[in-house]
C-alpha cells in the first residue's frame, strides 16, 4: 500500500433514495437526490470537515462512504480498497479499518448491553482476541484511552451522562484499531462544557493513534477549530472546499459567505458590527432540486446562466475548490 496516497478517495459519489407510491403495487415516482455527485480526498492523519445545513446530504455522504448505504454511483476507495465492489473478507477488512461515531449518544448504544458488550462487539466480530480475559483487558485499555474508569466495565449506558456515553461510542469505534473514523455530529447533542471535553479527546486520540477523521457537523465555529480542511455541501452537492483558514477568511462561494456571516460570535461588540448576509427563503426539496446551480434561487449574485448551467467543481486557487459561475 502506498503511504503517500490519500487514505480516502471519493469520486462522483451519488446516493438517491427512491420515492415510492402505491400500497400493493409499488412504483418508483421519483428520487430524493440526497448526495448527487461529490468528489474529494482525505489525506492520512488529516481531519476533513463536512458542513452544511440539515438536509444537505452530509450524513448520507458519510454513511454511503463507509458502505452503510449502497451507493447509487461513484467510486470510494479507502486505503486502496474499493468500498463499492468489496465483498466478504475484503468488506470485513474495510469495516475493521473504517469506523463511525454517531450523533446521539442516547440512541446509538444498546440500553440492554453493558459497556463491556458494547465495546467488545467489534473485537468479537473481527475475532481479534482469543479469550474473554484478553477481551476484558482490551476493553479496559480502551476505556482508559477515552478517559473512563475500567471499573465501570459492567455498567449499563443509562448509568452514564451524555458526555460519558459519547466516550463509550468513541471507545467502541477505536476497538478494532481503525485508521479512519467518520464522526457524524459527535458533539451536537452535548452541552457546551462537555463538547470541549469530547473535542479535546478526539484531538488527543488523533495525535496518539495517527487517525484520519471525516468530521461531519453544522457547528461552523467548532469545525474551524478541529479541522485541517473544510468542505461545504448544499442540497446534495459540493459548494466549496479549502484549507480551514483559507475557507473562513477568503470564502469564494456566495453560499459559504452567507453561511459564515450567519454564525453568531460570542462577543457583543463584534457580533453587532458583523455584516450579516440574510438568505431569503429555505433550502429547496432534494426531490426536485433547482436547475443549473442548486443555490441560484437564494443566491444574491445569480443570473440567467446560473439557472441554466450546472457550475463545474474546479480548482479556483491552489487547493481551493469551488463550484460557482461567479468566481
Amino acid at each position: 500500500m502506498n503511504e503517500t496516497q490519500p487514505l480516502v478517495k471519493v469520486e462522483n459519489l451519488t446516493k438517491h433514495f427512491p420515492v415510492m407510491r402505491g400500497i400493493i403495487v409499488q412504483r418508483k415516482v421519483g428520487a430524493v437526490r440526497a448526495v448527487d455527485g461529490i468528489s474529494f480526498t482525505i489525506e492520512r492523519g488529516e481531519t476533513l470537515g463536512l458542513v452544511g445545513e440539515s438536509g444537505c446530504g452530509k450524513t448520507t455522504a458519510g454513511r454511503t462512504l463507509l458502505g452503510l448505504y449502497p451507493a447509487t454511483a461513484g467510486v470510494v476507495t479507502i486505503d486502496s480498497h474499493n468500498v463499492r465492489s468489496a465483498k466478504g473478507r475484503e468488506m470485513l477488512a474495510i469495516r475493521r479499518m473504517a469506523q463511525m461515531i454517531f450523533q446521539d449518544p442516547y440512541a446509538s448504544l444498546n440500553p440492554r448491553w453493558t459497556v463491556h458488550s458494547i465495546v467488545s462487539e467489534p473485537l468479537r466480530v473481527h475475532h481479534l482476541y482469543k479469550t474473554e480475559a484478553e477481551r476484558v483487558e482490551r476493553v479496559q485499555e480502551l476505556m482508559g484511552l477515552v478517559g473512563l474508569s475500567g471499573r465501570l466495565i459492567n455498567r449499563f449506558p443509562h448509568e452514564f451522562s451524555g458526555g460519558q456515553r459519547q466516550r463509550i461510542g468513541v471507545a467502541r469505534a477505536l476497538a478494532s484499531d481503525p485508521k479512519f473514523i467518520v464522526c457524524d455530529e459527535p458533539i451536537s447533542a452535548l452541552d457546551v462544557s462537555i463538547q470541549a471535553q469530547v473535542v479535546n479527546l478526539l484531538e488527543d486520540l488523533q495525535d496518539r493513534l495517527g487517525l484520519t477523521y471525516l468530521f461531519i457537523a453544522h457547528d461552523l465555529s467548532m469545525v474551524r477549530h478541529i479541522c485541517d480542511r473544510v468542505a461545504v455541501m448544499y442540497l446534495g452537492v459540493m459548494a466549496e472546499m479549502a484549507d480551514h483558514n483559507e475557507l473562513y477568511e477568503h470564502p469564494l462561494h456566495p453560499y459559504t459567505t452567507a453561511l459564515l456571516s450567519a454564525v453568531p460570535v460570542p462577543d457583543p461588540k463584534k457580533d453587532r458590527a458583523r455584516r450579516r448576509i440574510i438568505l431569503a427563503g429555505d433550502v429547496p426539496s432534494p426531490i426536485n432540486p433547482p436547475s443549473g446551480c442548486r443555490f441560484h434561487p437564494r443566491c444574491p449574485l445569480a443570473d440567467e446562466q446560473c439557472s441554466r448551467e450546472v457550475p463545474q467543481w474546479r480548482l479556483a486557487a491552489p487547493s481551493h475548490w469551488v463550484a460557482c459561475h461567479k468566481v
Partner: protein
Amino acid sequence: MTSLLDVKDLKTRFLTPEGTVYAVNGISFHVDEGETLAVVGESGCGKSVSMLSVLQLILVPPGEIAGGVVLYRGQDLLKKSEREMEAIRGQEIAMIFQDPMTSLNPVLTIGKQITESLRVHMGMDQKSANKRAVELLEMVGISDPSHRLGDYPHLFSGGMRQRVMIAMALTCNPSLLIADEPTTALDVTIQAQIIELVIRIRQQVGMAVIWITHDLGVVAGIADRVMVMYAGFIVEEANVNALYENPRHPYTSSLLEALPRVDRRRDRRLKSIPGAPPSLLVEPHGCPFAVRCEFVIERCRTENPFLTAVGENHHNIACWVDIKTGAQR
C-alpha cells in the same frame, strides 16, 4: 422606575418517584419595560422551568412552586387564579417555544390557530380577526399571507412555522415575550432570519423579551442584559458587554473559554470544564459549581454564595472568590 417583571426567591421542585428534583432554587431577577434579558445555561439548569413557573405553566403535580413572589406590574402572579392567568398569558405575556413542529396543532389551519386568540382574548369577529391575522403574518415575513391562512402547519418549513408562532404570540400586543430556545431547532441561516425578525419586531412594538438559550453567540447579538444559570441558581448577572468582556464567575469565564470562534484562527486547545453538572435529585448545599471549579475553596463546599454586586451597573455574581485577584469575600 418599577420593573415590568420582578421575581423574588422563586423555587420550583418536581416530586418524582426517584425523589425531589430541585429545579429552581430561589432565584431573583427583574425585567424592565422594553429590555431584552437573555437567560443562558446548559440543559437542566432551570432556565426554562423558571420561566414556565412565572407563567404557571408547570404541571402540578409533579411540579410544585415551593415559594417566591412573581410581580408583574406590581401584581403577584402566583396568587392569581387559573382564569386570571389565562387572561395574562397571551394578552400580557406571550411565549414561544423551541420546537415549532410540535407547538402548532397539525389538524387546524394556520388561520384558525391565529384567529382563535384574537377572538377569545380580543373579542373580535372572524372577519376582523382574519384581517388582523393577515397583517400579523405579513409583519413576520410570510409572503402571500391571505392565501396561506387556509394552509395546515405541515405545509410550512421549520423557519416558517417559527414565524407563525411569533405572529401568534404577537396577536394581543403583549408587553413581554418569553422565547424559549426559539432558534435551537433551526439551521444557522434560518436562525439569522428569526433573530433579525425578533429584533425588528421588538423595536416596532416596544415589548420586553426574555430569550432563553444555551448559545452564548446568540446572546451576544440580541441581549441587553444576561443572566447565567447553573443547577437551578443564577450564578452571574450583568449587562451584555460587561459579561463578555469581564466575566466574574468561574463558570461563565470557563464557558466562554470553552467556545471556539468562527472569526478567529485556532490558537489553543479548547478549555474544557471537567466533570458534569450535579444531580438535581440532591438538595443543594454549598456552591453547585464547587466540584468542577478551579478556584474552589473550603467555604464553597459548605456555604452557598448568594448573588451579590461586584461591579458597576448591577454586575452580580454568586461566588466566594474574586477570580481576577484570588481574594475571598
